[in-house]
């Protein structure tokens, strides 16, 4: 530790540049992770906010929420405290010259999602079929409480009475209205009651035998593009981690090789190899730890300055996991030259 710190202290420029490189590597990985989580969040924020555990769709919906239509006959009786019918339809919300692609979600006012799960940030909940609350991102785009929204060109005209947070579905802001408005929007048959049944409890297929049963994980993975997008990001981050390992290992290896003449002298003087190895590993860990900390700091700063529309999510568990992974990469990188240190021939010190 003594040797490691003294060397860093003396070789400030060299170790500063190496640390900067490690910071940039961890920053790149963390920012990508943040964007992946941000996009994932925008796909599922509403579903997460409902505390969803189980989803039922119609059997011929081909796993698509927007294509699912549940009829009165197929819907089982249920307790509205833990299950709710929702009607989902993509729509274009227009207010004056403003247009926005939204997901309209129709709710029953006596069921748990409407009663307990809407997280109001301004205004109040809807009190009739002509009122809606919307995701607060619309507020940031110029929509106000009291505005009249027209959904699609022929759809109903609805008044915004409140804004809620965590109301996004398939990367679009949600407009929460009534199931009556949804029926109007979708122009469905009178016996159609909604698109899906949502429960905040784990339920079995037997709960609604005429409908298709999904756990929340299965359902989310079936959301259009969600799985492909996450897999792409995961592979990008995975490859980046592998490339980072190679870069970190190569740098640490070169650093160690440059120190071999000094190590040879120390070995000739009787300094045990284990001291030199532990010093090398400690130094590597320190550099990677500072790199990870710097990466976290830059990621947090970036989150502050990113424009509103760019999705980015800070998840401390994921950041802790990534930092740990970087430290493990650092240890692996530091362990590669250990054999070289252990095999140093102290006789080399006399030939310098």
């Amino acid at each position, binding site marked *: 530790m*003594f*040797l490691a710190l*003294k*060397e860093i*202290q*003396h*070789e400030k420029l060299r170790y500063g540049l190496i640390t900067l490189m490690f910071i940039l590597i961890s920053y790149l990985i963390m920012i990508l992770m943040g964007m992946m989580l941000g996009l994932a969040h925008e796909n599922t924020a509403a579903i997460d906010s409902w505390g969803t555990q189980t989803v039922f769709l119609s059997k011929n919906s081909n796993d698509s929420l927007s294509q699912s239509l549940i009829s009165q006959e197929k819907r089982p009786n249920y307790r509205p405290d833990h299950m709710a019918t929702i009607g989902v339809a993509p729509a274009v919300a227009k207010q004056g010259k403003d247009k926005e692609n939204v997901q309209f979600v129709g709710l029953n006012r006596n069921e748990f999602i409407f009663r307990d799960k809407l997280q109001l940030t301004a205004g109040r909940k809807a009190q009739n079929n002509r009122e809606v609350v919307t995701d607060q991102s619309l507020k940031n785009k110029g929509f106000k409480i009291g505005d009249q929204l027209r959904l699609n060109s022929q759809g109903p005209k609805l008044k915004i009475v409140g804004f809620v947070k965590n109301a996004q579905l398939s990367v679009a802001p949600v407009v929460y209205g009534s199931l009556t408005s949804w029926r109007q929007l979708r122009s469905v048959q009178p016996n159609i009651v909604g698109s899906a049944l949502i429960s905040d409890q784990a339920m079995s297929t037997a709960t609604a035998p005429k409908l298709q049963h999904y756990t929340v994980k299965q359902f989310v993975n079936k959301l259009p593009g969600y799985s492909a997008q996450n897999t792409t990001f995961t592979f990008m981050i995975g490859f980046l981690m592998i490339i980072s390992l190679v870069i970190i290992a190569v740098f640490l290896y070169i650093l160690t090789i440059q120190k071999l*003449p*000094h190590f040879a*002298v*120390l*070995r*000739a*003087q*009787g*300094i*045990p190899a284990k*001291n030199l190895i532990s010093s090398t590993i400690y130094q590597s860990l320190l550099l990677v730890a500072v790199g990870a900390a710097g990466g976290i700091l830059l990621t947090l700063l970036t989150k502050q300055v990113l424009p509103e529309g760019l999705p980015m999510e800070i998840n401390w568990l994921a950041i802790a996991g990534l930092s740990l992974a970087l430290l493990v990469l650092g240890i692996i990188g530091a362990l590669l030259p250990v054999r070289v240190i252990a095999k140093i021939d*102290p*006789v080399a*010190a*006399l*030939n*310098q």
Partner: protein
Amino acid sequence: MDDAMIIKDVNKSYGHGVGRVHVLKDVSFSAALGELNLVLGPSGSGKSTFLTIAGGLQTPDTGQVIIDGQDINKLSHQQKEHLRLDKIGFVLQSYNLLPYLTVQDQFKLVDRVKKAGNLSAGQLDQLLEQLEIKKLVNQYPSELSGGQNQRVAIARALYTDPQVVLADEPTASLDSNLVKVVGQLFQDLAKQNNKAVVVVTHDLRLKQFADRIWDLSDGKLTQE
């Protein structure tokens, strides 16, 4: 005088078959406490091999190297490391100083590896004063002259209070004035600090400081 180091009938060869080179041939040597031994020889005469075998860095093909009553060839790898740390002080051509440690940190490094038996703070002060480098303790090796570096390297070698000091071409890059300073230093080291000092060199200017002079040529060591 007591022999701190005895080398008996040491042979060392490199290579195989027709390429085999017999570097040391039945070499015997002894160095006593309080004595400066000078091993002279031209380049390629086997001086470095002699020094590495004497310091336990290499094992001879045959023969014995006895330091402090122990045949070091019978010691394990770790025991040899301990012996080098405790009983032998190396002064190398490259001054054996780490460039990123100040003079005082060079000693602190030893303290971290060898917890006991090093010079006390008072003894170190005295040694630094004797070597006229006490004012340089906060300097890095790159900030010192060749002669100052050489004296720091000597202090570093003596800090573990070794019985034997082995020096490899200590005057290789020094001018005549500094050769005298370094030669005197090694002589004082042997006499005042009661060490067995072995200097391997081809620099004849050091002869005037030596108690015994050895000649190594064609692998054979003879005392003048």
